[in-house]
């Protein structure tokens, strides 16, 4: 370039350059407009919501959960207010020194409290953090007196689960706990927020949707520091609906009292409709420990217990039914015309199949007996001889008809389907081929047979009521706090078990003789004036060649499981009961006696039976030091 100037002395090049700049500036302003259009017109709604979220803060107010009640309205589980100390960090000047002061005041560990605060540090500073839960009245008054020195700290009243009967029925009612981040992501829990508690097991879990109320909220307009500005809008929380169970309050309490020190389960049910009258599983646990997130100490003590307190043994524990299965075997044999009730068959002390020898529980057995006596005395060899003629698949067919080996469909979570062997199922499950000897074990409820107490009691209910199989249920109705019935459960008839009435009557007669005849295995469960029918059972935990033994000499976990399942009265049965006393933990009244006491109580309540003075006295003094296996 020779010159910046044109010939007439005008600075031409410079003017070109200013033009270039003008064009660039115009282009930049245009780009700005495009960006503004994008932000405000295209994305405007999105940013508008963001700005609104910026300015409003929501603090959730937990709604009390609904109560869990007995059918007659007595409270099993409810909510109470707990006093908790909370802190709003944005209002505290020196967090550490004030926490130290609080710790000294309340006799708590400072580090422990500090850890709790630190855990919640990601929360916005206006949100209260609960640092001490469920404080005592004494602590509360100490706090109130020193309130002046604790700015930013306050007492928060929070509803908390309350268990008036502590451990009773804990597995059935279930426990609650703080909702986890995983649960929050589930679609079915979309109504929950992070500070909520949630039903984790049992009815608390199954009917969570109803028990959980509507959380309230505090809406606060805040500035960027989280300081509240202007009005606070409060929406009050609404308590959840009340759950009326089918449980009979007195019966439930009695059942737990009887089972408290044992390991096992009891279910009482109305055989005419499947209503659960009582259900307990023991040993139990204190569900309160879970409601705020269980501590390591409590958790390991519950989990470390080999009697599995968390398991609801009534529906989750599938074990060998033992001789209670003989009712099924009898019905199968009768229906298949292998025997008639009165037909006498020889039953000896042993039964030989090929080289294998199968023993009777009573080594002195050596006579021809009919079905009634076989049931009443629980004669194993009688069943061995019909077992070889029935075959495993036919036997299973009748077990299935009675609802064994399948979920009953009770409205509680985690039901175990159990297992009833057929040749095919055993191969599918265990990759084993069937051999005939197993049929003999299966017919007396051993080997592969696994049933839950609930299946057993429903099967016996079907026998008792003349062949109607019902679905058991534990929820009577759900009633909102305003008194509106949100849901009622009606008895659900599943099917007729398709076994002739005369065969059912024959088996029922045998079951009655179990209690009524002097040689019956449950003679100690006799109820004066009531036809109480049932069947004992003892399921081996390990196989033994001896059949009578001193219970004290055997380690507890190898002791047999004792069963009793029965119903009363014979005509128009009002109650069916199953008792599972695992590993016969205690000497004394056995499973049948526990069942008897429950039946007595229920019939007494219904005005169908009255205890006599003499009867009451004799209660305590029948503790046998030997019990028999394989009844």
């Amino acid at each position, binding site marked *: *370039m*020779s*010159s*910046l*100037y044109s010939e007439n002395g005008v*600075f031409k*090049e*410079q*003017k070109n*350059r*200013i*033009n270039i*700049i*003008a064009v660039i*500036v*115009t282009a*930049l*302003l245009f*780009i*700005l*407009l495009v*960006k*503004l*259009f994008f*932000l*405000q*017109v295209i*994305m*405007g*709604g*999105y*940013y*508008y919501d*963001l*700005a*609104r979220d*910026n*300015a409003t803060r929501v603090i959730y107010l937990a709604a009390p959960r609904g109560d869990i009640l007995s059918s007659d309205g007595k409270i099993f589980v409810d909510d109470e207010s707990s006093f908790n100390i909370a802190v709003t960090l944005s209002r505290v000047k020196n967090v550490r020194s004030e926490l130290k002061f609080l710790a000294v005041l309340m006799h708590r560990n400072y580090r422990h409290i500090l850890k709790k605060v630190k855990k919640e540090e990601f929360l916005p500073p206006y949100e209260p953090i609960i640092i001490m839960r469920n404080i005592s009245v004494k602590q509360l008054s100490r706090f109130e007196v020193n309130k002046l020195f604790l700015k930013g700290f306050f007492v928060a009243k929070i509803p908390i689960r309350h268990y008036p009967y502590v451990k009773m029925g804990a597995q059935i009612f279930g426990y609650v706990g703080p909702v986890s981040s995983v649960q929050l992501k589930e679609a079915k829990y979309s109504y929950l927020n992070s500070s909520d508690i949630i039903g984790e097991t049992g009815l608390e879990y199954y009917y969570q949707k109803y028990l959980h109320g509507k959380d309230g909220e505090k809406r606060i*307009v*805040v*500035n*960027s*520091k989280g300081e509240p*500005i*202007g009005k606070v809008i409060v929406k009050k929380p609404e308590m959840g609906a009340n759950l009326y169970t089918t449980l009979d309050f007195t019966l439930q309490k009695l059942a737990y009292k009887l089972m408290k020190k044992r390991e096992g389960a009891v279910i009482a049910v109305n055989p005419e409709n499947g209503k659960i009258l009582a259900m307990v599983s023991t040993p139990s646990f204190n569900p309160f420990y879970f409601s705020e997130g269980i501590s390591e100490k409590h958790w390991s003590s519950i989990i470390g217990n080999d009697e599995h307190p968390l398991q609801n043994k009534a529906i989750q524990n599938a074990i060998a039914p033992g001789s209670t299965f003989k009712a099924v075997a009898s019905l199968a044999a009768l229906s298949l015309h292998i025997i008639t009730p009165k037909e006498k068959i020889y039953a000896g002390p042993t039964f030989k199949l090929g080289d294998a020898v199968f023993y009777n529980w009573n080594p002195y057995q050596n006579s021809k007996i009919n079905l009634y006596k076989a049931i009443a005395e629980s004669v194993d060899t009688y069943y061995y001889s019909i077992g070889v003629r029935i075959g495993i698949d036919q036997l299973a067919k009748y077990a299935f008809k009675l609802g064994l080996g399948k979920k009953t469909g009770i409205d509680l979570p985690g039901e175990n389907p159990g297992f009833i062997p057929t040749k095919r199922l055993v191969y599918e499950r265990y990759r084993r081929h069937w051999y005939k000897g197993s049929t003999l074990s299966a017919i007396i409820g051993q080997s592969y047979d696994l049933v839950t107490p609930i299946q057993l009691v429903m099967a016996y209910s079907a026998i008792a009521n003349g062949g109607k199989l019902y679905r058991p249920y534990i929820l009577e109705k759900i009633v909102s706090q305003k008194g509106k019935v949100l849901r009622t459960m009606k008895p659900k008839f599943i099917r007729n078990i398709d076994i002739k009435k005369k065969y059912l009557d024959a088996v029922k007669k045998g079951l009655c003789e179990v209690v009524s005849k002097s040689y019956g295995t449950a003679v100690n469960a006799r109820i004066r004036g009531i036809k109480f029918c049932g069947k004992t059972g003892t399921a081996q935990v390990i196989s033994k060649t001896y059949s009578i033994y001193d219970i004290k000499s055997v380690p507890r976990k190898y002791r047999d499981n004792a069963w009793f399942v029965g119903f009363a009265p014979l005509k128009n049965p009002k109650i069916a009961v199953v008792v599972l006393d695992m590993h016969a933990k205690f000497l004394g009244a056995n499973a049948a006696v526990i069942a008897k006491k429950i039946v007595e109580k229920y019939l007494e309540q219904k005005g169908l039976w009255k205890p006599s003075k003499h009867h009451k006295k004799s209660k305590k003094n029948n503790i046998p030091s030997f019990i028999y296996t394989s009844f």
Partner: protein
Amino acid sequence: MKILNNKYTQNFDFIILFTVIIIFSLGIINLYGSLSIHHKDFFDPYVIKQLVWFVVSILIMALIISIDYNTLIEAAYYIYGFILIFIVIVLVKGRITHGASRWISLGVLSFQPSELMKIALIFALVKYFTTCENKKGYNLRSLIIPFIMILIPVLLIAKEPDLGTSLIVLFIGLIIIFLAGIKRNSMLILAGIILVTGPVLWFRLKSYQKSRILIFLHPAKDYLGAGYNIIQSEIAVGAGRLFGDGFGNGSQSTLDFLPAKHTDFIFSTYMQQFGFIGGLVLIILYFIVIIRGFKIVYRAKKLQGFLLGGGALAIITFHAIINMFMTVGLLPVVGVPLPFFSYGGTSLVVDMSAVAILLNISMRRYKFQS
């Protein structure tokens, strides 16, 4: 009475002056609307102070307009030296008090000498280029003195530390060199030097300065930290939508979510209240000022007027574009006020002085008319 000379008034660009006053008035309204809901006084100290500064800047404008710009150019080196001394004073004061210091206090009002340096530098460079005029264009060697004149204040201001102002001073200097007639191949070499020294400078930056630039690239990375400003600003702008939330309803500013809502982020405050339509109006107003400015510069008959006007226009344009670009996320966050609109005395005086310089040039065009 030279000021009342008929030819002066004939060539006086009233459009620029009125547009600037409209922008300032919008700024005052906006300032009212942005006040925190904590303190809403009619006699708000921010508004009152800004009005006082307006009066001060009008007086300074009158002073600048009344003096022939050629006279001012004569005094350029003195002005330049004077401001430079102030910058050094600020720097030393900052060293003693161990803090960033950009201000010199004059009783009630305080001002930033670094802002005034923008004007002083233009005058000094114009004086240099008009006394050593080179009609064939400048190569790099002949530009050593102007470069020194630019780099001294740039480095001092960067030390304060005020990277934003420092860069703007640098750009204004470069614009003048560009307009004065740097040779094209020298321009390329200069660009090359800047490209090479860029990465070296990166390591000289303070960590917060680095993070501002990194965050500009990924604002969401540090939502509550360094990315907070730009995200809150974009929320404010976007929330305005087409028609705005209305006067006084910009929640981002009234609830103090926006940092520097009166100064650097005043544009976001305005955008939430008045929306895209309001933004369009404001940008058109700036466009009018800038285009009128270009016209004045383009029509200047002598190099003095041309370069001086170009520099003055560069100040206004840079401020406006950088500020608006930054608030919508098109540029990293640097502390640059929006001309005539942001709260702040010194910047108002500087931008008004730039306008006064343009008016001065347009008004005295008659001298060269035949």
